[in-house]
């Protein structure tokens, strides 16, 4: 036993590491580089009812310790995902978390109902927080009552547990988390990207064709950790944490903050072998910390500071 296997609603995972949605396509490209069976789970790219082309290019811009993207939920549409991508992924013994997106509530309900029937889809991730689409997306993720209602409706039709992906672009993240928990969410995934912009020095215009994009990468890690720390102490559902994770050490930080599993996003672009690398490093790190199992680390930071162990320099 390597101390990494964990159980989440709907899933038994070999380890708590999974690629984040939108950063891994449907796994085909990465499968040419390593055996996907190593992964704890795979969060596939957002699925909408109809195929979507997404936003015009340029769609990415680098930032200090991060990147902006405005892909715009490009995907081949529900039918193609059901007929081609999910059956292809079935060759791997890895639970799939299907990211569900839409413009209207009915879209989410339709996609959720159908995609959850695929045998390898073990959970849904409601994408109510994408900052790069004009309708839907973030609108659902910033109003607690709408988010709750959407969660409820999707829960009614889904055959698998429903995780809701929270946006950091809100004033009160705990309020949002509680609202979707009230709506019946089985888990939370957090955080999605932060809305940002960059300007082109030569043209004086935004670099991204969409003007704004979602900031990801190490630059947002402290924000993610803070939000997971706050939310995890106020909800009774597990959190899959994400936001700038690059290393096994980062994973530990997210667990201390209150995460029960983590997703790796932008790091896959920097190093396509980031996920297997982290999985390989984790057992040694757990040994250094002195725990048998990674789940022992969830929420370790919540307790009060032990004054006896605090020595002023």
């Amino acid at each position, binding site marked *: 036993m390597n101390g990494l296997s964990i159980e989440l609603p709907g899933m038994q995972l070999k380890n708590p590491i999974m690629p984040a949605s939108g950063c891994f396509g449907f796994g085909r490209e990465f499968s*040419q580089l390593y055996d996907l069976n190593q992964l704890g789970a795979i969060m596939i790219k957002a699925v909408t009812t109809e195929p979507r082309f997404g936003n015009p290019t340029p769609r990415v811009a680098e930032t200090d310790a991060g990147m902006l993207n405005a892909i715009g939920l490009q995907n081949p549409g529900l039918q193609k995902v059901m007929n081609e991508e999910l059956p292809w992924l079935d060759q791997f013994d890895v639970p799939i978390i299907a990211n569900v997106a839409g413009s209207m509530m009915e879209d989410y309900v339709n996609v959720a109902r159908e995609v959850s029937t695929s045998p390898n889809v073990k959970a849904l991730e409601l994408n109510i927080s994408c900052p790069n689409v004009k309708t839907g997306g973030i609108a659902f993720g910033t109003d607690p009552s709408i988010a709750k209602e959407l969660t409820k409706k999707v829960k009614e039709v889904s055959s698998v547990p429903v995780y809701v992906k929270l946006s950091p672009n809100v004033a009160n993240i705990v309020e949002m988390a509680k609202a979707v928990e009230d709506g019946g969410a089985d888990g939370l995934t957090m955080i999605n990207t932060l809305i940002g912009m960059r300007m082109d020095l030569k043209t004086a215009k935004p670099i991204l064709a969409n003007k704004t994009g979602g900031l990801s990468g190490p630059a947002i890690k402290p924000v993610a950790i803070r939000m997971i720390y706050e939310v995890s102490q106020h909800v009774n559902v597990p959190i899959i944490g994400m936001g700038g994770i690059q290393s096994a050490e980062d994973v530990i930080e997210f667990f201390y903050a209150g995460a029960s599993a983590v997703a790796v996003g932008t790091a896959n672009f920097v190093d396509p072998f980031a996920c297997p690398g982290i999985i390989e490093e984790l057992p040694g790190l757990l040994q250094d910390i002195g725990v048998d199992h990674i789940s022992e680390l969830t929420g370790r930071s919540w307790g009060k500071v032990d004054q006896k162990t605090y020595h002023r320099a």
Partner: protein
Amino acid sequence: MIRKEKMTVVSQKMIAENIYEMILHGELVSEMDNPGQFVHVKAEEGIDPLLRRPISISSIDKKNNAFTMIYRTEGKGTKRLAQKNEGDSVDVLGPLGNGFPILPHHKGKRALLVGGGIGVPPLYELSKRLVENKMEVVHVLGFQTESSSFYMEEFASLGHAYAATVDGSLGTKGFVTSIIDDMDGEFDVLYACGPIPMLRALEQRFSDIEAYLSLEQRMGCGIGACFACVCPVQGDESGTEYRKVCSDGPVFPVGEVVL
């Protein structure tokens, strides 16, 4: 197969204004196949700069397990790359994408190679391979100014090499199209790499011959997973058909994608 390797810098030199030629050594070279493919380079460990940089492969030396890349220093990443010295290592992911096709039935035919700025480097390996394929090659290379021009002699050793510069300091004043308009004779195949306006102009002029265009686009992953570098397919009424520059390209037959 795509590999990731810490490759060793064999040599690095500035060959024109802000243009560097770097030779790297490593096993990854054995995977390099077609001219026109590229590598994704991480100039330095750490998170600043975070992302890799796509850089075209300008020549392949399988015998010595080495390849050459020619790049322009623009941002943080390429400037750091330019500080590397002989013996240093560079994290390289590659080879990526599909290159220019070299087709046996082109043997004895006449090829026009058109490059603009930092689109010139991948044409060098292509030109060598076309010459090996017993083809006649003519190069038309566009630069901003003479000081930013490079490899004119190398190209000239393979076939006619014409230069166009915006300020007229080298070759013909103007763009590559100014030269092409005055050229004699017919071409059987066109290969081009450079800025989109140049490729558009070539697409209009050479709609009747076999042509392959290499595109540049901002990339995230470089392997086809992030959908950052997509371009729409020409004539697709549904508006949903696309090609990824990194993994379906960067070379496309003329008329395949919207420029």
